[in-house]
């Protein structure tokens, strides 16, 4: 990413990869409020099947990348920074709040963006609110336990 044409090219690659991801979560109905309700009520296998098979691919491929000391296309050694457990409060407290928001909107951040594209203008309110939520966390961060 030294010169600007390269940088633009890289951005176009990520735009394309993101487009494929958006198609996947839309066609896979991960962005459906109905599917998320079915999941939180344990009444259907669809979402659990998605998570299980996604992990069945992600876990071995990450192991393979780590064990094989595989490099990225730009030559960098691939490093995955480990998540710091600390006292773990952030994962429980932040996770609980996130879960409540996920059940209400039926959308986590990826689906928020996909629903906007799918022609649900009201989701714009959820996106703006999510940005404000992240901003509010930033303002309170030093006072919150982690």
């Amino acid at each position, binding site marked *: 990413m030294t010169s600007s044409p390269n940088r633009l090219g890289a951005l176009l690659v990520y735009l394309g990869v993101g487009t494929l991801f*958006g198609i996947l979560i839309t066609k896979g109905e991960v962005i459906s409020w109905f599917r998320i309700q079915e999941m939180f009520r344990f009444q259907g296998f669809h979402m659990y099947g998605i*998570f299980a098979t996604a992990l069945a691919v992600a876990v071995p*491929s990450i192991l393979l990348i780590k064990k094989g000391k595989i490099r990225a296309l730009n030559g960098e050694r691939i490093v995955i920074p480990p998540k710091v457990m600390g006292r773990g409060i952030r994962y429980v407290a932040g996770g609980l709040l996130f879960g409540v928001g996920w*059940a209400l909107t039926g959308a986590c951040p990826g689906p928020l*963006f996909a629903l906007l594209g799918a022609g649900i203008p009201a989701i714009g309110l959820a996106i703006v609110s999510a940005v404000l939520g992240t901003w509010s966390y930033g303002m309170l961060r030093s006072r919150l336990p982690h």
Partner: protein
Amino acid sequence: MIEFLHRPWPWWVAGPLIGLFVPLLLIIGNRLFGVSANLRHLCAATLPSPTEYLRYDWKARGGWNLAFAAGIVLGGFLAGFVFANPDPIAIATSTQADLSALGIVDFEGLVPADLFAADALFSLRGWIVLGLGGFLVGFGAAWAGGCTSGHGIAGLGDLQLPSLLAIGSFFVGGIAATHLLLPLLF
């Protein structure tokens, strides 16, 4: 062919392909899959940033991810608008019954019109579902350091214990809101 493009994909097609995005992004550019970081980048790009957490070079750190998010919007447009599934989503009949009991009558489309129609913006319920719900998604993901993609797929995919704790908490919060909060809204 056109009819095929409109059809939804089963979990055993969509799931493994979603999992593929973790190694794909690592190999393309040593990037770790995670969508909620974009909410932070959008803050850094658009809002006053008096704290260090929101003051950084968002173009250098988040440019790739914002392009990825723009792609998600485009993908949602192609798969959810241009090639939208014309049929209601085939959720379990028990879920349909539960939601009908709450007062949801319209099962067409990806999301219930009862909650997501444009006039939802003029109701208290709409502001709780979309405004409060969205706020908690953004606040919670930032506090937890990741969302369903960063913790649920990438973090669990890397066998990270903190991600397991986060995912467990996502579900406890979501199940509680489904059974305790949603009934109050109708």
